[in-house]
């Protein structure tokens, strides 16, 4: 049976070139980079190269920091909790502003900080399903807001948020600005000098790097109380022995992601649009969010009368991996806030299927997937009591 992986917003295949580049750092160049001997210094030039690639990838100034972390969850926790320790807990500004569609590693961290004294404001979404400058201006408080945290692109819908404009509003009001760019890197241009965030989080496995390694950009001159206390690694800014092999993999993966950006914006987009057009040709289907506001690889489609998990089941039977937009398996039955914001009938909340492509997706795979979608939708609508 053909296998087609269309769940690239969950994780991606490691680019074989990246895997190859990481290989020597397990059995050949394995010294602890903090050791004084030659084994310890041997990986240094490779680590410097990896950093160069990441600084270049994000267009980050040399005076800023890019900390190598264990994952984007760690990066996001470091920012939110660091702001809590350094600002909120010191009785200065006490408010964190975020959106209703953040990844749980931001949303749940913010809720936790609220439970220990921070004030949390969750912005409403506009009719496009994003947060705009006017919305943030309305809710930001120049005396109170400590941090604004808004994702660059949404994992479920692919909606891209105007982070540059939002960072400007945050800064005008004396607040710090953080963006979770996990779903943006490799899909759309990410330039920290242009967008001007104070903090930016990313994760290697979303752009064909390995799992278990992430990064945190911190603007020059800023310093956060660390999440992990320990040794003096990473200039004392992130304790724990650096995951050398994966850091090197992440550096190369970032370089490749940037090199392939043009391909992503044209060819991946073309395949995505082909798939999307085919889905929209089926009766009673809706794709969430305007195409031009989304990352080029993502489709969140609602298929009337077909429950999301049942659809995933049928896709999986046919070798296709996708994901539910509003997971029935998740704990809450509350509809996806993006559905609500853009005015999609709440009856459709359980019909979402997310399809996410990558530069490794082929046209032949898309053609196959389109065929499977057609037959599965027909089968499940025959069973359905609501179609």
């Amino acid at each position, binding site marked *: 049976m053909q296998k087609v992986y269309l769940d690239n917003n969950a994780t991606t295949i490691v680019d074989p070139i990246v895997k190859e580049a990481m290989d020597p750092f397990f059995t050949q160049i394995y010294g602890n980079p903090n050791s004084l001997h030659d084994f310890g210094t041997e990986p240094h030039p490779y680590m410097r190269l990896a950093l160069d690639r990441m600084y270049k990838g994000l267009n980050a100034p040399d005076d800023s920091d890019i900390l190598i972390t264990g994952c984007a969850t760690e990066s996001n926790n470091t920012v939110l909790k660091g702001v809590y320790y350094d600002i909120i807990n010191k009785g200065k500004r006490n408010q964190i502003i975020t959106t209703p569609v953040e990844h749980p590693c931001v949303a749940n961290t913010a809720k936790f900080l609220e439970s220990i004294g921070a004030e949390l404001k969750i912005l409403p979404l506009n009719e496009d399903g994003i947060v705009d400058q006017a919305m943030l201006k309305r809710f930001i408080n120049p005396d109170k807001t400590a941090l604004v945290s808004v994702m660059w692109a949404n994992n479920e819908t692919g909606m891209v948020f105007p982070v540059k404009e939002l960072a400007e509003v945050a800064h005008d009001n004396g607040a710090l600005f953080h963006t979770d760019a996990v779903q943006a890197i490799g899909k759309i241009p990410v330039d920290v000098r242009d967008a001007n965030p104070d903090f930016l989080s990313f994760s290697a496995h979303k752009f064909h790097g390995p799992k278990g390694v992430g990064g945190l950009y911190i603007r020059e001159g800023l310093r956060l109380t660390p999440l992990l206390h320990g040794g003096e690694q990473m200039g004392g800014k992130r304790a724990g022995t650096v995951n050398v092999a994966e850091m090197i993999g992440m550096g190369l993966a970032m370089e490749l992601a940037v090199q392939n950006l043009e391909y992503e914006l044209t060819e991946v987009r073309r395949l995505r649009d082909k798939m999307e057009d085919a889905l929209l040709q089926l009766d009673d289907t809706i794709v969430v969010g305007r195409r031009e506001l989304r990352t080029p690889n993502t489709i969140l489609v609602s298929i009337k*009368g*077909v*429950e*999301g*998990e*049942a659809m995933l*089941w049928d896709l*999986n*039977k046919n070798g296709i991996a996708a994901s539910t937009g509003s997971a*029935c*398996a998740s*704990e*809450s*039955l509350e*509809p996806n806030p993006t559905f609500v914001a853009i005015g999609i009938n*709440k*009856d*459709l*909340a*359980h*019909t979402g299927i997310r399809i996410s492509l990558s530069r490794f997706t082929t046209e032949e795979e898309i053609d196959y997937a389109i065929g499977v979608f057609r037959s599965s939708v027909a089968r499940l609508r*025959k*069973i*359905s*009591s*609501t*179609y």
Partner: protein
Amino acid sequence: MAKNDLIGGALWEQYSDKVSSRMDEPKFRGEITEAQAEAMGARLVVADWGAEACGDAVRLYWAVEKGTDKILDARFKSFGCGTAIASSDMMAELCIGKTVDEAVGITNIEVEHALRDDPNSPAIPPQKMHCSVMAYDVIKKAASLYKGVDMSSLEEEEIVCECARVSLRTIRDVIRINDLKTVEEITNYTKAGAFCKSCIRPGGHEKRKYYLVDILRDVRKEMEKEKMAEVSETKDFKTMTVVQKLKQIESVLEAEIKPILAQDGGSMEVVDIKEEDGSTIVYIHYLGACQGCPGATAGTLMAIQQFLNEKVDQSIQVEPV
């Protein structure tokens, strides 16, 4: 359990083969038309339960034989996940051949058991158990339509946990009888809350009328109150709490001593009480005319103590301060 919990997510691996095959090819999917029912000499019943917005909706068709109330055929349609489809399919099968009254007795637990490959392995993972509840509810709905009665008249008890079908009465009883103090204990005793967990506390998968945390809190509060009432009714002064002792002493003083002192323009108040070597020392403070009265440290004091010894407890000693 911890080791098995660390790598989660594999819901579908936990489905029985019967669940999988009925999801892929449901045997009783479809509908029964008015004409088909008529041809069988049966009455058609079509019941809907659930809603798309809630993530699950099912429609049940019954052809019920006139006169005997026997379900000759059953079909379903479902908007739902694999578990919902497979359990609706099994539910329809179990209905066939039963009378309407017998069918009302089919529970989601029975449906789940029928879907097991072997009797000791659950057919679906615990968090999907609630998806099978629809199949149970729709039978009730169909029966109520057939009989022309309200659905609630078919439900004998208030159900707190739909997945494990545990009633409010059972949960309240089990808390009382076993002196349960945590929700985990309730789950261990009754299985309530073991599956989709919606009934444990607000904010879960589904909104519920009752939550285990609230029931536990309320029952514990009732038990506590009853215990207190019991204690204050007992005449045994020694087992009372300090506050209860103080209250009893004060009530006696208020009723019997103070009116006598007041005749001479005096009064008193209890400053403190203290437990010492099995006796209760009551420290009092004289007020009004009693202050400086010579009897206050002699005859009056003796009288007060004797009175309390008689009316309350022998162990009481009174000390003026």
